[in-house]
């Protein structure tokens, strides 16, 4: 159950990062006052969140695979 919670949190982080990318695009798309620097900062934060989210998802997936077939871990 703990691994599922971690995976859900990871997917939430990925969703937030994609939302941040969308906000960054809207910053640049504003024809009156396009804000490139602010969009760049948002993209930087989005990439950090995405990295964290992907890490959480991968760890929880790998842990579930190991738990499902414990014999595979023996050397």
């Amino acid at each position: 159950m703990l691994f599922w919670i971690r995976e859900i949190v990871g997917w939430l982080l990925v969703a937030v990062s994609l939302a941040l990318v969308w906000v960054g695009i809207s910053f640049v798309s504003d024809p009156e006052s396009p804000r490139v620097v602010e969009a760049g900062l948002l993209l930087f934060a989005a990439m950090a969140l995405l990295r964290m989210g992907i890490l959480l998802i991968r760890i929880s997936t790998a842990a579930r695979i190991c738990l499902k077939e414990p014999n595979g871990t023996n050397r």
Partner: protein
Amino acid sequence: MTTPRPSPVSSKPQRERVADRIPAVDADLWQHVYLILTAMVGLLFVWTLSATDDVSLPLRLIFLAVLVLTLNRWTAAVLLGLIQVQLLFLEPPAVGVIAHIGGFLWIMLTLLLVLVVSRYRTLQDRTHSAGFAAIRHLFGHGLNRSRTEAEHEWFNLLTALKNLLSGVLKIAVCATVAAVVLNAFPVNPVPGERLYTYREFSLIPSGYRLIRLSLTLFAVFLVSWIVINESVWRRLSPRQASVYLRSTFLNWVHRDLRMVILKRMKIRRAKARKVPSMSRQDGFDTTVAVSDLED
């Protein structure tokens, strides 16, 4: 036919021979040189800050404090960050070609300051002596020294100056390339023959369109990349998953152990690179041994 393999770990006499080939570096003298250069370039840097009226006195004092603290405690990254703040928000509107040249020289001066401070800090870590001790040693040692010592120090001074000139040349090339790249930006021109400030900076409309389209493409790529990678990741075998988990937890929990392992690998690779040059004189073929060590 088997080729004789030399031992990957060199013996003590071999190591001594390698150590003899490395020229001795007078780190103390170089530290003095870089300390003096830091002081000179730092004074010029502070003078350029005080030459402009737009920079307030507290900010000048903060820059001065950062400059002094960089010598003993901080790294050059802090200095670079503050310089970026100065460039972004306080750059005064300058006029004509002289402004371009002045800005170019200012960037050169800043990078030169970072160069000498970084070099000084490296030497300080090596000799474990503080800046004040270096000054004391410089003034006390310069009065009574023998002729051999003077010749040795002169040779070291020449080498240091040669390295410094090479660094300045590299900085000049990098600054020129950066200036050419920045001039290629499609910037909306401001009225008059003056440079734009940070607030007035804007690209031409097609430039913004290009950025927007690039970001949209990037977002589409990101979503597809996440979907494909995560679906492939779920097909890991249990053994692969176990290796990934162990590697990740080693990185998180036992970072010190990871550093030790990486350092050992680095040393083994360095030794493996030295093996061919040493054994070529003996006529041994060591390509197999080197590839084994690299693995």
